[in-house]
């Protein structure tokens, strides 16, 4: 993004947040629209369960809206938001045993399987296999992978979100990547094709 475009985006986000801090409901909705898909995607891939992903997303935005007055603009808003996402996901993981393992069909899977194009199916199968392995990672490794690949955060940003050092982020990603590579080694052919 061009620096001026980035600055203008930051300015409009700042105004939006200030409006939320004045209890402007329309501003809440706009803030929700801007971030809902990314938050939901992380929640879904973390829990592998649509109901849980809905609950997590709902909790995140409720907490966000009820505490947004405490937000000071000396921090990145996304750091604040994704710290909430990580905390709610981890809390749900601890409280709840309903996160189902891969293999139990979800609505998303069923819809995908109806689409029969071969290339699409292979790609979909690859994505589903990746999701399954990610769902089995330890929660801390899983969250590091999701933040990196959905948010494209730097290690320093991730460290702020996860409350650890950039070195720990590097270590968690390293372990996550190795597990993915080893468990999906049989799909290595896809890598060669894509490269």
């Amino acid at each position, binding site marked *: 993004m061009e620096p001026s475009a980035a600055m203008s985006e930051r300015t409009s986000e700042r105004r939006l947040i200030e409006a939320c801090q004045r209890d402007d409901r329309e501003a809440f909705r706009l803030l929700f629209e801007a971030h809902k898909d990314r938050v939901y*995607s992380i929640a879904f891939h973390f829990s592998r369960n649509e109901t849980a992903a809905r609950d997590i997303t709902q909790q995140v935005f409720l907490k966000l809206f009820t505490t947004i007055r405490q937000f000071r603009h000396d921090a990145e808003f996304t750091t604040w938001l994704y710290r909430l996402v990580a905390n709610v996901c981890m809390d749900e993981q601890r409280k709840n045993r309903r996160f189902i393992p891969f293999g139990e069909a979800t609505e998303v899977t069923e819809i995908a399987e109806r689409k029969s194009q071969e290339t699409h199916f292979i790609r979909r199968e690859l994505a589903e296999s990746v*999701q399954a392995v990610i769902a089995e990672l330890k929660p801390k490794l899983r969250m590091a*992978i999701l933040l990196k690949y*959905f948010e494209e955060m730097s290690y320093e940003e991730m460290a702020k979100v996860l*409350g650890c*050092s950039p070195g*720990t982020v590097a270590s968690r990603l390293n372990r996550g990547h190795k*597990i993915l590579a*080893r468990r999906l080694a049989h799909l290595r052919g896809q890598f060669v094709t894509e490269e």
Partner: protein
Amino acid sequence: MLSKHVYKQLSAYCHGELSSEEAQRVAEHLRGCERCRKEHEEIKLGIFFAQQLTRLPAPASLWDEIETALNQQPTPASWRLKFPRLAFAFAWPRLATAVAVLLVLSVGSVWFYLRLSRPAWDVEMIEGYAQVGSQRIGENGKLAVGQWLKTGDDSRARLSVGEIGHVELAPNTRLRLDESRSDDHRVTLERGTMYATIDAPPRAFSVATPSAVAVDLGCAYTLEVDESGAGLLSVTFGWVAFEVEGRESFIPRFAECHTRPGSGPGTPYYKEASASFKVALSKLDFQKLSAAEREAALTTVLSEARKEDAFTLWHLLTRTSGGERERVYDRLAALVPPPSGVTRDGVLQGDRPMLDRWWDELGLDTASWWRMWKGPWPPQTK
């Protein structure tokens, strides 16, 4: 001869997170080390798989559900409306009984709390083992008030700072828990490196080092102390105050500050300031210089200072006197003109309200914000 293996850095290498020197070292090592090359291939494959994750659209009905829940949230205003009704709803005998029950429960809770809760932090080992007193910790343990925790050559530990944050300790770090109360958490870092992330009101967490105390103002930072007791505080988020015996430094994010035994905290500066600026500043802070050397160092600092470095010059105003303070004043005024009512004479005489008002012009938090937590100027500051 091959350099140290690089497999722990490979994800950071692939993500472009290493400095150019580190990346070059990794690339050179990979050329000569088959083991690390294999690991590199594995990490690249893992990254490829992770990149296959797809974003999903949030369900369309989610906003309606959130809005419904928001409408059900009690607001302070609605509480005020409901409270009188609640009060009248209680008949006096029932109210008296309820108060008595609450009293018994409260006393019981306090007794239970005092008896069972010993102030201690949870310790989680990230790598290797640590020592608490004479006890070795493998995975999880406790660090009680008064106890020392020591990490080994290859070990790293994570401590929960009550309910307000975390501290991560690097290898070869020695730290003591001095106090753990809801509004006051204190540790001593004797040596090593700690990374703190604190989400609490300012001053709820502080770290004593051999030459200064780091006081948290709501932040994330790294603090290193070497064998000589010298330290370096580097802030990644929020603010930290570094202070000892009336000498204080305020360090915003992306800035750092050295401290030395016998001198206390130096002048804070942004990490991206020029190398010559930082070297000259260090000379002024910690070295015994002749008059000519001191003048040369000050000239470098003033000529290299950018607008962003105004907060460094602001700190220098309180650490210089006479002609040096005049030179600092002139350069700071050129970078950030003093607001109306702040006069040259007043600042040169060390007028503290004027200094605070000038601080407010620097584009950082207002002085009144941190004075609220920090209190007035230290008596020794001139």
